[in-house]
Protein backbone atom coordinates (compact mmCIF):
# COMPACT_ATOMS: atom_id res chain seq x y z
CA UNK A 1 0.00 0.00 0.00
CA UNK A 2 2.75 2.45 0.93
CA UNK A 3 4.53 1.47 -2.25
CA UNK A 4 1.37 2.25 -4.19
CA UNK A 5 1.16 5.73 -2.69
CA UNK A 6 4.88 6.30 -3.14
CA UNK A 7 4.79 5.14 -6.72
CA UNK A 8 1.79 7.21 -7.63
CA UNK A 9 3.06 10.43 -6.08
CA UNK A 10 6.65 9.98 -7.22
CA UNK A 11 5.61 9.03 -10.72
CA UNK A 12 4.00 12.44 -10.91
CA UNK A 13 7.03 14.11 -9.31
CA UNK A 14 9.87 12.36 -11.11
CA UNK A 15 10.79 14.31 -14.22
CA UNK A 16 11.07 11.32 -16.49
CA UNK A 17 10.95 11.79 -20.21
CA UNK A 18 8.00 11.08 -22.47
CA UNK A 19 8.42 7.32 -22.00
CA UNK A 20 7.33 7.62 -18.37
CA UNK A 21 4.11 9.35 -19.37
CA UNK A 22 3.53 6.83 -22.14
CA UNK A 23 3.72 4.12 -19.52
CA UNK A 24 1.31 5.94 -17.22
CA UNK A 25 -1.12 6.38 -20.10
CA UNK A 26 -0.69 2.77 -21.21
CA UNK A 27 -1.54 1.60 -17.73
CA UNK A 28 -4.47 3.95 -17.21
CA UNK A 29 -5.97 3.22 -20.63
CA UNK A 30 -5.49 -0.54 -20.19
CA UNK A 31 -7.21 -0.44 -16.80
CA UNK A 32 -10.00 1.73 -18.20
CA UNK A 33 -10.70 -0.77 -20.94
CA UNK A 34 -10.61 -3.67 -18.47
CA UNK A 35 -13.20 -1.89 -16.33
CA UNK A 36 -15.39 -1.42 -19.36
CA UNK A 37 -15.16 -4.99 -20.64
CA UNK A 38 -16.21 -6.29 -17.22
CA UNK A 39 -19.49 -4.41 -17.59
CA UNK A 40 -19.78 -5.04 -21.28
CA UNK A 41 -19.27 -8.81 -21.36
CA UNK A 42 -21.55 -9.40 -18.42
CA UNK A 43 -24.39 -7.34 -19.79
CA UNK A 44 -23.98 -8.65 -23.32
CA UNK A 45 -24.47 -12.12 -21.90
CA UNK A 46 -27.85 -10.89 -20.68
CA UNK A 47 -28.96 -10.66 -24.32
CA UNK A 48 -29.13 -14.44 -24.01
CA UNK A 49 -29.76 -15.03 -20.33
CA UNK A 50 -31.87 -12.02 -19.29
CA UNK A 51 -33.16 -10.22 -22.40
CA UNK A 52 -35.12 -7.68 -20.34
CA UNK A 53 -31.97 -6.64 -18.44
CA UNK A 54 -30.03 -6.34 -21.67
CA UNK A 55 -32.54 -3.87 -22.99
CA UNK A 56 -32.11 -1.78 -19.86
CA UNK A 57 -28.35 -1.98 -20.12
CA UNK A 58 -28.36 -0.73 -23.69
CA UNK A 59 -30.74 2.05 -22.74
CA UNK A 60 -28.14 3.03 -20.14
CA UNK A 61 -25.43 2.89 -22.81
CA UNK A 62 -27.48 5.44 -24.76
CA UNK A 63 -27.55 7.84 -21.80
CA UNK A 64 -25.23 10.86 -21.65
CA UNK A 65 -22.97 9.36 -18.97
CA UNK A 66 -22.16 6.36 -21.13
CA UNK A 67 -21.84 8.51 -24.23
CA UNK A 68 -19.01 10.34 -22.51
CA UNK A 69 -17.64 6.98 -21.44
CA UNK A 70 -17.88 5.71 -25.01
CA UNK A 71 -15.69 8.53 -26.32
CA UNK A 72 -13.22 7.86 -23.53
CA UNK A 73 -13.27 4.14 -24.26
CA UNK A 74 -12.50 4.61 -27.92
CA UNK A 75 -9.68 7.01 -27.07
CA UNK A 76 -8.27 4.53 -24.54
CA UNK A 77 -8.33 1.63 -26.97
CA UNK A 78 -6.72 3.61 -29.79
CA UNK A 79 -3.94 5.01 -27.61
CA UNK A 80 -3.31 1.69 -25.87
CA UNK A 81 -3.18 -0.15 -29.19
CA UNK A 82 -0.70 2.25 -30.82
CA UNK A 83 1.45 2.51 -27.73
CA UNK A 84 1.32 -1.26 -27.33
CA UNK A 85 2.80 -1.52 -30.82
CA UNK A 86 5.55 0.87 -29.79
CA UNK A 87 6.39 -1.28 -26.75
CA UNK A 88 6.35 -4.44 -28.87
CA UNK A 89 8.62 -2.81 -31.43
CA UNK A 90 11.25 -1.65 -28.96
CA UNK A 91 11.21 -4.96 -27.12
CA UNK A 92 11.84 -6.75 -30.40
CA UNK A 93 14.47 -4.25 -31.60
CA UNK A 94 16.25 -2.88 -28.51
CA UNK A 95 18.79 -1.43 -30.89
CA UNK A 96 16.35 1.22 -32.07
CA UNK A 97 15.99 2.75 -28.61
CA UNK A 98 17.26 6.10 -29.90
CA UNK A 99 13.97 6.55 -31.70
CA UNK A 100 11.75 5.75 -28.75
CA UNK A 101 11.03 9.36 -27.79
CA UNK A 102 10.08 10.18 -31.33
CA UNK A 103 8.01 7.01 -31.47
CA UNK A 104 6.16 8.04 -28.32
CA UNK A 105 5.30 11.35 -29.96
CA UNK A 106 4.26 9.56 -33.13
CA UNK A 107 1.93 7.40 -31.03
CA UNK A 108 0.31 10.50 -29.55
CA UNK A 109 0.00 12.15 -32.95
CA UNK A 110 -1.39 9.01 -34.58
CA UNK A 111 -3.90 8.66 -31.75
CA UNK A 112 -5.06 12.23 -32.27
CA UNK A 113 -5.22 11.80 -36.05
CA UNK A 114 -7.28 8.65 -35.70
CA UNK A 115 -9.58 10.11 -33.10
CA UNK A 116 -10.48 13.28 -35.00
CA UNK A 117 -12.49 11.62 -37.80
CA UNK A 118 -13.73 8.90 -35.47
CA UNK A 119 -15.02 11.41 -32.94
CA UNK A 120 -16.66 13.45 -35.69
CA UNK A 121 -18.52 10.37 -36.90
CA UNK A 122 -19.43 9.35 -33.38
CA UNK A 123 -20.58 12.85 -32.56
CA UNK A 124 -22.81 12.77 -35.63
CA UNK A 125 -24.56 9.76 -34.14
CA UNK A 126 -25.08 11.70 -30.93
CA UNK A 127 -26.48 14.73 -32.76
CA UNK A 128 -28.76 12.59 -34.85
CA UNK A 129 -29.97 10.77 -31.79
CA UNK A 130 -30.90 13.87 -29.86
CA UNK A 131 -32.60 15.43 -32.88
CA UNK A 132 -35.17 12.64 -32.58
CA UNK A 133 -37.11 12.42 -29.34
CA UNK A 134 -35.01 9.73 -27.75
CA UNK A 135 -35.57 7.76 -24.59
CA UNK A 136 -33.10 9.17 -22.07
CA UNK A 137 -32.72 7.29 -18.82
CA UNK A 138 -32.16 9.59 -15.85
CA UNK A 139 -28.65 9.55 -14.37
CA UNK A 140 -29.92 8.06 -11.13
CA UNK A 141 -31.39 5.06 -12.90
CA UNK A 142 -28.21 4.57 -14.91
CA UNK A 143 -26.00 4.74 -11.83
CA UNK A 144 -28.23 2.39 -9.89
CA UNK A 145 -27.87 -0.16 -12.68
CA UNK A 146 -24.08 -0.13 -12.22
CA UNK A 147 -24.19 -0.80 -8.48
CA UNK A 148 -24.36 -4.60 -8.87
CA UNK A 149 -21.12 -4.47 -10.90
CA UNK A 150 -19.41 -2.61 -8.10
CA UNK A 151 -20.65 -5.16 -5.59
CA UNK A 152 -19.55 -8.00 -7.88
CA UNK A 153 -16.04 -6.59 -8.16
CA UNK A 154 -15.76 -6.21 -4.40
CA UNK A 155 -16.97 -9.79 -3.99
CA UNK A 156 -14.36 -11.01 -6.47
CA UNK A 157 -11.72 -9.17 -4.46
CA UNK A 158 -12.95 -10.62 -1.18
CA UNK A 159 -13.08 -14.11 -2.68
CA UNK A 160 -9.56 -13.68 -4.05
CA UNK A 161 -8.24 -12.61 -0.66
CA UNK A 162 -10.10 -15.42 1.10
CA UNK A 163 -8.62 -17.98 -1.29
CA UNK A 164 -5.22 -16.44 -0.71
CA UNK A 165 -5.67 -16.78 3.04
CA UNK A 166 -6.67 -20.39 2.58
CA UNK A 167 -3.70 -21.04 0.34
CA UNK A 168 -1.46 -19.45 2.93
CA UNK A 169 -2.92 -21.56 5.73
CA UNK A 170 -2.55 -24.79 3.76
CA UNK A 171 0.95 -24.06 2.50
CA UNK A 172 2.23 -22.99 5.90
CA UNK A 173 1.69 -19.27 5.37
CA UNK A 174 5.32 -18.46 4.63
CA UNK A 175 6.75 -16.59 1.62
CA UNK A 176 5.07 -19.27 -0.48
CA UNK A 177 3.32 -17.69 -3.41
CA UNK A 178 2.57 -19.18 -6.78
CA UNK A 179 5.07 -17.87 -9.27
CA UNK A 180 7.25 -19.42 -11.88
CA UNK A 181 9.73 -18.00 -14.28
CA UNK A 182 8.43 -20.05 -17.15
CA UNK A 183 4.92 -18.68 -16.65
CA UNK A 184 6.19 -15.12 -16.52
CA UNK A 185 8.07 -15.59 -19.74
CA UNK A 186 4.99 -17.04 -21.37
CA UNK A 187 2.86 -14.10 -20.27
CA UNK A 188 5.39 -11.63 -21.54
CA UNK A 189 5.18 -13.17 -25.02
CA UNK A 190 1.45 -13.65 -24.76
CA UNK A 191 0.85 -9.96 -24.01
CA UNK A 192 2.71 -9.06 -27.18
CA UNK A 193 1.22 -11.67 -29.46
CA UNK A 194 -2.32 -11.15 -28.17
CA UNK A 195 -1.90 -7.39 -28.45
CA UNK A 196 -1.13 -7.70 -32.13
CA UNK A 197 -4.04 -10.09 -32.72
CA UNK A 198 -6.45 -7.88 -30.78
CA UNK A 199 -5.79 -4.84 -32.95
CA UNK A 200 -7.76 -5.90 -36.05
CA UNK A 201 -10.46 -7.52 -33.93
CA UNK A 202 -11.05 -4.62 -31.59
CA UNK A 203 -10.73 -1.96 -34.26
CA UNK A 204 -13.23 -3.84 -36.41
CA UNK A 205 -15.54 -4.18 -33.43
CA UNK A 206 -15.30 -0.50 -32.54
CA UNK A 207 -15.73 0.55 -36.14
CA UNK A 208 -18.85 -1.55 -36.54
CA UNK A 209 -20.45 -0.80 -33.19
CA UNK A 210 -19.45 2.77 -32.51
CA UNK A 211 -18.55 4.44 -35.76
CA UNK A 212 -20.47 2.89 -38.67
CA UNK A 213 -23.49 2.10 -36.55
CA UNK A 214 -23.59 3.73 -33.16
CA UNK A 215 -25.03 2.29 -30.00
CA UNK A 216 -27.99 4.54 -30.75
CA UNK A 217 -28.80 2.56 -33.90
CA UNK A 218 -29.46 -0.71 -32.18
CA UNK A 219 -32.38 0.02 -29.91
CA UNK A 220 -35.36 2.35 -29.52
CA UNK A 221 -38.39 3.53 -31.44
CA UNK A 222 -36.17 5.69 -33.65
CA UNK A 223 -34.51 2.52 -34.97
CA UNK A 224 -37.88 1.43 -36.31
CA UNK A 225 -38.74 4.88 -37.62
CA UNK A 226 -35.46 5.17 -39.44
CA UNK A 227 -35.82 1.72 -40.95
CA UNK A 228 -39.33 2.46 -42.16
CA UNK A 229 -38.22 5.81 -43.53
CA UNK A 230 -35.54 3.93 -45.47
CA UNK A 231 -38.25 1.74 -47.00
CA UNK A 232 -37.50 -1.36 -44.94
CA UNK A 233 -40.07 -3.57 -43.30
CA UNK A 234 -39.38 -2.65 -39.70
CA UNK A 235 -36.21 -1.30 -38.17
CA UNK A 236 -32.64 -0.83 -39.27
CA UNK A 237 -30.68 -3.95 -40.15
CA UNK A 238 -27.82 -4.85 -37.81
CA UNK A 239 -24.38 -3.95 -39.08
CA UNK A 240 -22.76 -7.03 -40.54
CA UNK A 241 -26.00 -9.01 -40.56
CA UNK A 242 -27.44 -10.52 -43.73
CA UNK A 243 -30.99 -9.17 -44.14
CA UNK A 244 -31.90 -11.95 -46.54
CA UNK A 245 -31.15 -14.48 -43.79
CA UNK A 246 -32.19 -12.77 -40.60
CA UNK A 247 -34.32 -9.81 -41.59
CA UNK A 248 -34.20 -6.39 -39.99
CA UNK A 249 -34.36 -5.37 -36.36
CA UNK A 250 -38.14 -5.32 -36.38
CA UNK A 251 -38.60 -5.12 -32.61
CA UNK A 252 -36.18 -2.24 -32.28
CA UNK A 253 -34.42 -3.99 -29.41
CA UNK A 254 -30.73 -4.61 -28.91
CA UNK A 255 -31.52 -8.25 -28.24
CA UNK A 256 -32.77 -8.75 -31.79
CA UNK A 257 -29.78 -6.80 -33.06
CA UNK A 258 -27.38 -9.19 -31.33
CA UNK A 259 -29.37 -12.22 -32.48
CA UNK A 260 -29.37 -11.04 -36.09
CA UNK A 261 -25.62 -10.75 -36.14
CA UNK A 262 -25.01 -14.10 -34.48
CA UNK A 263 -27.48 -15.83 -36.79
CA UNK A 264 -25.84 -14.51 -39.91
CA UNK A 265 -24.06 -17.34 -41.68
CA UNK A 266 -21.38 -17.05 -44.30
CA UNK A 267 -20.80 -20.36 -46.09
CA UNK A 268 -22.57 -22.06 -43.20
CA UNK A 269 -20.31 -20.47 -40.59
CA UNK A 270 -21.60 -18.10 -37.92
CA UNK A 271 -18.82 -15.63 -38.55
CA UNK A 272 -19.85 -13.08 -35.93
CA UNK A 273 -19.94 -15.71 -33.24
CA UNK A 274 -16.42 -16.76 -34.17
CA UNK A 275 -15.30 -13.16 -34.35
CA UNK A 276 -16.76 -12.35 -30.95
CA UNK A 277 -15.29 -15.55 -29.47
CA UNK A 278 -11.82 -14.57 -30.65
CA UNK A 279 -12.21 -11.06 -29.33
CA UNK A 280 -13.59 -12.31 -26.03
CA UNK A 281 -10.83 -14.80 -25.36
CA UNK A 282 -7.96 -12.53 -26.32
CA UNK A 283 -9.21 -9.39 -24.65
CA UNK A 284 -10.19 -11.09 -21.39
CA UNK A 285 -6.94 -12.98 -21.03
CA UNK A 286 -4.80 -10.02 -22.11
CA UNK A 287 -6.76 -7.56 -20.01
CA UNK A 288 -6.79 -9.65 -16.85
CA UNK A 289 -3.15 -10.55 -17.11
CA UNK A 290 -2.51 -6.82 -17.49
CA UNK A 291 -4.65 -6.24 -14.43
CA UNK A 292 -2.55 -8.84 -12.60
CA UNK A 293 0.63 -6.98 -13.61
CA UNK A 294 -0.72 -3.77 -12.18
CA UNK A 295 -2.23 -5.21 -9.01
CA UNK A 296 0.78 -7.36 -8.14
CA UNK A 297 3.22 -4.53 -8.85
CA UNK A 298 1.80 -2.67 -5.88
CA UNK A 299 1.31 -5.60 -3.50
CA UNK A 300 4.72 -7.27 -3.67
CA UNK A 301 5.43 -6.56 -0.02
CA UNK A 302 2.62 -8.83 1.20
CA UNK A 303 2.38 -12.43 -0.03
CA UNK A 304 -1.23 -12.55 1.20
CA UNK A 305 -2.28 -9.52 -0.81
CA UNK A 306 -0.20 -10.46 -3.81
CA UNK A 307 -1.70 -13.95 -4.06
CA UNK A 308 -5.10 -12.43 -3.41
CA UNK A 309 -4.71 -10.16 -6.42
CA UNK A 310 -3.72 -13.10 -8.60
CA UNK A 311 -6.72 -15.13 -7.44
CA UNK A 312 -8.99 -12.13 -7.99
CA UNK A 313 -7.79 -11.81 -11.57
CA UNK A 314 -8.25 -15.53 -12.19
CA UNK A 315 -11.76 -15.39 -10.74
CA UNK A 316 -12.68 -12.34 -12.81
CA UNK A 317 -11.33 -13.74 -16.06
CA UNK A 318 -13.00 -17.10 -15.47
CA UNK A 319 -16.39 -15.55 -14.85
CA UNK A 320 -16.16 -13.46 -17.99
CA UNK A 321 -14.95 -16.34 -20.13
CA UNK A 322 -17.69 -18.67 -18.86
CA UNK A 323 -20.43 -16.09 -19.35
CA UNK A 324 -19.03 -15.03 -22.70
CA UNK A 325 -18.65 -18.47 -24.18
CA UNK A 326 -21.99 -19.47 -22.63
CA UNK A 327 -23.74 -16.71 -24.52
CA UNK A 328 -21.95 -17.39 -27.78
CA UNK A 329 -23.21 -20.96 -28.06
CA UNK A 330 -26.85 -20.10 -27.39
CA UNK A 331 -29.46 -18.85 -29.82
CA UNK A 332 -31.64 -15.81 -29.36
CA UNK A 333 -35.15 -16.94 -30.19
CA UNK A 334 -38.46 -15.14 -30.65
CA UNK A 335 -39.36 -15.55 -26.97
CA UNK A 336 -36.26 -13.64 -26.01
CA UNK A 337 -37.09 -10.91 -28.50
CA UNK A 338 -40.62 -10.69 -27.18
CA UNK A 339 -39.32 -10.31 -23.62
CA UNK A 340 -37.00 -7.62 -24.86
CA UNK A 341 -39.83 -5.77 -26.60
CA UNK A 342 -41.89 -5.79 -23.41
CA UNK A 343 -38.95 -4.55 -21.42
CA UNK A 344 -38.39 -1.73 -23.89
CA UNK A 345 -42.05 -0.81 -23.71
CA UNK A 346 -41.85 -0.62 -19.92
CA UNK A 347 -38.78 1.59 -20.12
CA UNK A 348 -40.66 3.98 -22.40
CA UNK A 349 -43.67 3.96 -20.09
CA UNK A 350 -41.54 4.77 -17.06
CA UNK A 351 -39.08 7.23 -18.53
CA UNK A 352 -40.64 8.81 -21.62
CA UNK A 353 -43.52 11.17 -22.27
CA UNK A 354 -45.30 8.63 -24.41
CA UNK A 355 -44.83 5.11 -25.74
CA UNK A 356 -44.25 5.46 -29.49
CA UNK A 357 -46.74 3.67 -31.74
CA UNK A 358 -44.11 1.92 -33.85
CA UNK A 359 -43.08 -0.21 -30.91
CA UNK A 360 -46.54 -1.85 -30.99
CA UNK A 361 -46.60 -2.04 -27.23
CA UNK A 362 -50.11 -1.59 -25.93
CA UNK A 363 -51.34 -5.11 -26.63
CA UNK A 364 -48.31 -6.85 -25.16
CA UNK A 365 -47.80 -4.94 -21.93
CA UNK A 366 -51.51 -4.81 -21.30
CA UNK A 367 -51.29 -2.88 -18.04
Amino acid at each position, binding site marked *: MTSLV*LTLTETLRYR*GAVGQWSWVLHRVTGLGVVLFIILHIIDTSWAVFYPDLYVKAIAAYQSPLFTIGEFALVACVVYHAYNGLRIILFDARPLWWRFQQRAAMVVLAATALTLIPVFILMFNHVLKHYSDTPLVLPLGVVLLEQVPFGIGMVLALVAGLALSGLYGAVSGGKEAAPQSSRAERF*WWSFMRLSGILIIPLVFGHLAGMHVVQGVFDIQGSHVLERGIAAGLEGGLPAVGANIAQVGVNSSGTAVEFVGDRWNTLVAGVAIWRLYDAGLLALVVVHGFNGLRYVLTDYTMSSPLLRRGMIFTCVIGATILLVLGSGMLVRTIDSTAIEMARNSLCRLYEENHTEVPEVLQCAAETGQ
Partner: protein
Amino acid sequence: MDVTFRIRRYNPDIPGKNKPYWQEFRLADVDPNDRVLELLHRIKWEQDGTLTLRRSCAHGVCGSDAMRINGVNKLACKVLMRDINGSKVQVEPILGLPVIKDLVVDMEPFFGHYREVMPFFVNDEPVPANGRERLQSPDDRAQYDDTTKCILCAACTTSCPSFWANGKYVGPAAIVQAHRFIFDTRDRAAKERLNVLAEPNGVWRCRTIFNCTPACPRGIEVTRAIGEVKLAIQRGTTTGIVDISTIHIKEPT
Protein backbone atom coordinates in the same frame (compact mmCIF):
# COMPACT_ATOMS: atom_id res chain seq x y z
CA MET B 1 25.00 34.57 -9.40
CA ASP B 2 22.79 33.72 -6.45
CA VAL B 3 21.37 30.28 -6.17
CA THR B 4 18.68 28.80 -3.93
CA PHE B 5 18.94 25.19 -2.90
CA ARG B 6 15.89 23.29 -1.70
CA ILE B 7 17.04 20.09 -0.03
CA ARG B 8 15.09 17.14 1.28
CA ARG B 9 16.31 16.61 4.84
CA TYR B 10 15.78 13.67 7.15
CA ASN B 11 17.42 12.79 10.42
CA PRO B 12 15.99 9.85 12.31
CA ASP B 13 17.93 10.77 15.47
CA ILE B 14 16.53 14.23 16.14
CA PRO B 15 13.16 14.17 17.90
CA GLY B 16 10.64 16.30 16.03
CA LYS B 17 12.76 16.26 12.91
CA ASN B 18 12.61 12.57 12.21
CA LYS B 19 10.16 13.08 9.39
CA PRO B 20 11.46 14.16 5.98
CA TYR B 21 11.18 17.91 5.40
CA TRP B 22 12.38 20.54 2.92
CA GLN B 23 15.00 23.12 3.83
CA GLU B 24 16.17 26.07 1.75
CA PHE B 25 19.70 27.45 1.54
CA ARG B 26 20.91 30.53 -0.32
CA LEU B 27 24.33 30.72 -1.91
CA ALA B 28 25.96 33.86 -3.28
CA ASP B 29 28.83 34.14 -5.77
CA VAL B 30 28.04 30.95 -7.57
CA ASP B 31 29.92 30.39 -10.80
CA PRO B 32 28.11 28.78 -13.73
CA ASN B 33 30.93 26.26 -13.86
CA ASP B 34 30.41 25.22 -10.24
CA ARG B 35 29.17 21.71 -9.83
CA VAL B 36 26.17 20.88 -7.68
CA LEU B 37 28.42 18.71 -5.53
CA GLU B 38 30.67 21.69 -4.75
CA LEU B 39 27.69 23.81 -3.86
CA LEU B 40 26.36 21.12 -1.53
CA HIS B 41 29.81 21.14 0.06
CA ARG B 42 29.63 24.90 0.47
CA ILE B 43 26.29 24.53 2.23
CA LYS B 44 27.69 21.84 4.48
CA TRP B 45 30.93 23.68 5.21
CA GLU B 46 29.61 27.24 5.45
CA GLN B 47 26.02 26.92 6.64
CA ASP B 48 24.94 23.60 8.09
CA GLY B 49 27.46 20.96 9.01
CA THR B 50 24.76 18.40 9.63
CA LEU B 51 23.84 18.16 5.94
CA THR B 52 24.72 14.60 5.03
CA LEU B 53 25.63 13.30 1.61
CA ARG B 54 27.87 10.67 0.12
CA ARG B 55 30.65 11.32 -2.33
CA SER B 56 34.10 10.06 -2.89
CA CYS B 57 35.93 10.72 -6.13
CA ALA B 58 34.03 13.89 -7.08
CA HIS B 59 34.75 13.12 -10.72
CA GLY B 60 32.02 10.79 -11.87
CA VAL B 61 34.04 7.63 -11.39
CA CYS B 62 33.06 6.09 -8.07
CA GLY B 63 29.29 6.41 -8.34
CA SER B 64 28.73 7.57 -4.75
CA ASP B 65 26.72 10.72 -5.24
CA ALA B 66 23.66 9.81 -7.27
CA MET B 67 20.74 12.00 -6.18
CA ARG B 68 17.57 13.43 -7.60
CA ILE B 69 18.45 16.89 -8.86
CA ASN B 70 15.57 19.01 -10.10
CA GLY B 71 13.44 15.93 -10.40
CA VAL B 72 15.78 13.53 -12.20
CA ASN B 73 18.57 11.23 -11.12
CA LYS B 74 22.06 12.65 -11.66
CA LEU B 75 25.53 12.49 -10.19
CA ALA B 76 25.94 15.70 -8.21
CA CYS B 77 29.57 15.80 -9.30
CA LYS B 78 28.64 15.83 -12.98
CA VAL B 79 25.98 18.55 -13.01
CA LEU B 80 27.25 22.09 -13.56
CA MET B 81 25.16 25.10 -12.58
CA ARG B 82 25.11 26.17 -16.20
CA ASP B 83 23.38 22.88 -17.09
CA ILE B 84 20.54 23.90 -14.81
CA ASN B 85 17.82 26.16 -16.06
CA GLY B 86 17.48 29.09 -13.68
CA SER B 87 18.89 29.56 -10.20
CA LYS B 88 16.86 27.05 -8.22
CA VAL B 89 18.20 23.62 -7.41
CA GLN B 90 16.09 20.99 -5.74
CA VAL B 91 17.94 18.01 -4.32
CA GLU B 92 16.44 14.80 -2.96
CA PRO B 93 17.72 11.30 -2.23
CA ILE B 94 17.24 8.70 -4.94
CA LEU B 95 13.97 6.79 -4.78
CA GLY B 96 13.07 3.28 -3.77
CA LEU B 97 15.91 2.67 -1.29
CA PRO B 98 15.57 3.37 2.44
CA VAL B 99 16.85 6.83 3.36
CA ILE B 100 19.42 6.70 6.15
CA LYS B 101 19.96 10.42 6.58
CA ASP B 102 19.37 13.43 4.30
CA LEU B 103 20.72 12.44 0.88
CA VAL B 104 22.24 9.15 1.94
CA VAL B 105 20.32 5.99 1.15
CA ASP B 106 20.91 2.39 2.15
CA MET B 107 22.46 0.82 -0.96
CA GLU B 108 22.36 -2.69 0.45
CA PRO B 109 19.16 -3.82 -1.37
CA PHE B 110 20.70 -2.48 -4.56
CA PHE B 111 23.93 -4.39 -4.07
CA GLY B 112 21.91 -7.43 -3.09
CA HIS B 113 20.36 -7.43 -6.55
CA TYR B 114 23.80 -6.84 -8.03
CA ARG B 115 25.11 -9.96 -6.33
CA GLU B 116 22.15 -12.02 -7.54
CA VAL B 117 23.35 -11.88 -11.15
CA MET B 118 26.82 -13.27 -10.30
CA PRO B 119 28.74 -10.17 -11.34
CA PHE B 120 32.08 -11.91 -11.79
CA PHE B 121 33.87 -13.77 -14.53
CA VAL B 122 33.18 -17.51 -14.57
CA ASN B 123 35.33 -19.90 -16.59
CA ASP B 124 36.71 -23.09 -15.10
CA GLU B 125 38.31 -24.33 -18.30
CA PRO B 126 42.10 -24.75 -18.25
CA VAL B 127 44.01 -21.57 -18.93
CA PRO B 128 45.45 -21.23 -22.46
CA ALA B 129 48.65 -23.17 -23.15
CA ASN B 130 50.82 -20.07 -22.99
CA GLY B 131 49.43 -19.38 -19.54
CA ARG B 132 48.34 -15.89 -20.49
CA GLU B 133 45.01 -14.24 -21.18
CA ARG B 134 41.99 -15.81 -22.86
CA LEU B 135 41.89 -14.07 -26.20
CA GLN B 136 38.81 -12.61 -27.76
CA SER B 137 38.20 -10.91 -31.08
CA PRO B 138 37.52 -7.15 -31.10
CA ASP B 139 34.01 -7.91 -32.39
CA ASP B 140 33.29 -10.23 -29.48
CA ARG B 141 34.66 -7.65 -27.08
CA ALA B 142 32.44 -4.99 -28.64
CA GLN B 143 29.25 -6.85 -27.72
CA TYR B 144 29.46 -5.89 -24.07
CA ASP B 145 31.62 -2.79 -24.33
CA ASP B 146 28.80 -0.47 -23.37
CA THR B 147 27.85 -2.34 -20.23
CA THR B 148 31.42 -2.38 -18.87
CA LYS B 149 31.00 1.31 -18.13
CA CYS B 150 28.63 0.89 -15.19
CA ILE B 151 29.81 2.48 -11.92
CA LEU B 152 26.96 1.11 -9.76
CA CYS B 153 25.66 4.54 -8.78
CA ALA B 154 22.04 3.26 -8.82
CA ALA B 155 20.79 6.24 -10.83
CA CYS B 156 19.11 3.95 -13.37
CA THR B 157 17.58 1.47 -10.94
CA THR B 158 16.11 4.21 -8.77
CA SER B 159 14.64 6.01 -11.79
CA CYS B 160 12.50 2.99 -12.63
CA PRO B 161 8.81 3.05 -11.67
CA SER B 162 8.80 -0.76 -11.60
CA PHE B 163 11.54 -0.65 -8.97
CA TRP B 164 9.75 2.03 -6.93
CA ALA B 165 6.67 -0.18 -6.85
CA ASN B 166 8.54 -3.38 -6.15
CA GLY B 167 11.94 -3.34 -4.50
CA LYS B 168 12.35 -7.04 -5.28
CA TYR B 169 12.73 -6.28 -8.99
CA VAL B 170 16.44 -6.77 -9.75
CA GLY B 171 16.44 -3.43 -11.55
CA PRO B 172 18.28 -1.98 -14.55
CA ALA B 173 21.76 -1.80 -13.00
CA ALA B 174 21.87 -5.49 -12.09
CA ILE B 175 20.69 -6.36 -15.61
CA VAL B 176 23.37 -4.12 -17.11
CA GLN B 177 25.97 -5.86 -14.99
CA ALA B 178 24.63 -9.26 -16.04
CA HIS B 179 24.71 -8.15 -19.69
CA ARG B 180 28.41 -7.40 -19.34
CA PHE B 181 29.08 -11.08 -18.59
CA ILE B 182 26.25 -12.75 -20.50
CA PHE B 183 27.55 -11.41 -23.79
CA ASP B 184 31.21 -12.04 -22.96
CA THR B 185 32.16 -15.02 -25.14
CA ARG B 186 34.83 -16.12 -22.64
CA ASP B 187 32.37 -16.41 -19.78
CA ARG B 188 30.67 -19.73 -19.07
CA ALA B 189 27.83 -18.78 -16.74
CA ALA B 190 25.48 -16.98 -19.14
CA LYS B 191 22.89 -19.67 -18.63
CA GLU B 192 22.81 -19.31 -14.84
CA ARG B 193 22.57 -15.55 -15.12
CA LEU B 194 19.79 -15.76 -17.68
CA ASN B 195 17.94 -18.13 -15.35
CA VAL B 196 18.19 -15.62 -12.52
CA LEU B 197 16.92 -12.86 -14.79
CA ALA B 198 14.07 -14.99 -16.12
CA GLU B 199 12.61 -15.16 -12.61
CA PRO B 200 9.37 -13.24 -12.04
CA ASN B 201 11.35 -10.40 -10.45
CA GLY B 202 13.88 -10.39 -13.25
CA VAL B 203 13.66 -8.73 -16.66
CA TRP B 204 9.92 -9.29 -17.07
CA ARG B 205 9.27 -6.51 -14.55
CA CYS B 206 10.71 -4.09 -17.07
CA ARG B 207 7.87 -2.21 -18.78
CA THR B 208 10.12 -0.50 -21.34
CA ILE B 209 9.56 2.89 -19.71
CA PHE B 210 12.98 4.26 -20.72
CA ASN B 211 13.56 6.30 -17.54
CA CYS B 212 16.81 4.45 -16.91
CA THR B 213 18.58 5.31 -20.16
CA PRO B 214 18.71 9.11 -19.71
CA ALA B 215 19.40 8.62 -15.98
CA CYS B 216 22.72 6.88 -16.61
CA PRO B 217 25.58 9.34 -15.98
CA ARG B 218 27.84 7.16 -18.10
CA GLY B 219 25.60 7.19 -21.14
CA ILE B 220 25.04 3.44 -21.09
CA GLU B 221 22.20 2.39 -23.37
CA VAL B 222 20.46 0.77 -20.41
CA THR B 223 17.06 -0.06 -21.88
CA ARG B 224 18.76 -1.52 -24.91
CA ALA B 225 20.87 -3.78 -22.70
CA ILE B 226 17.75 -4.95 -20.87
CA GLY B 227 16.04 -5.59 -24.20
CA GLU B 228 18.98 -7.66 -25.38
CA VAL B 229 18.85 -9.77 -22.23
CA LYS B 230 15.10 -10.31 -22.74
CA LEU B 231 15.80 -11.48 -26.29
CA ALA B 232 18.58 -13.78 -25.10
CA ILE B 233 16.15 -15.41 -22.67
CA GLN B 234 13.41 -15.69 -25.29
CA ARG B 235 15.70 -17.15 -27.92
CA GLY B 236 17.76 -19.30 -25.56
CA THR B 237 21.01 -18.07 -27.05
CA THR B 238 23.41 -15.18 -26.65
CA THR B 239 24.67 -15.11 -30.21
CA GLY B 240 23.26 -12.91 -32.93
CA ILE B 241 21.54 -10.54 -30.51
CA VAL B 242 23.88 -7.60 -30.04
CA ASP B 243 24.42 -5.78 -33.34
CA ILE B 244 28.03 -4.68 -32.98
CA SER B 245 27.98 -2.62 -36.18
CA THR B 246 26.21 0.05 -34.11
CA ILE B 247 28.76 0.07 -31.34
CA HIS B 248 31.48 2.62 -31.61
CA ILE B 249 34.52 1.88 -29.53
CA LYS B 250 36.94 4.75 -29.18
CA GLU B 251 40.51 3.95 -30.21
CA PRO B 252 42.90 4.54 -27.32
CA THR B 253 44.72 7.84 -27.86
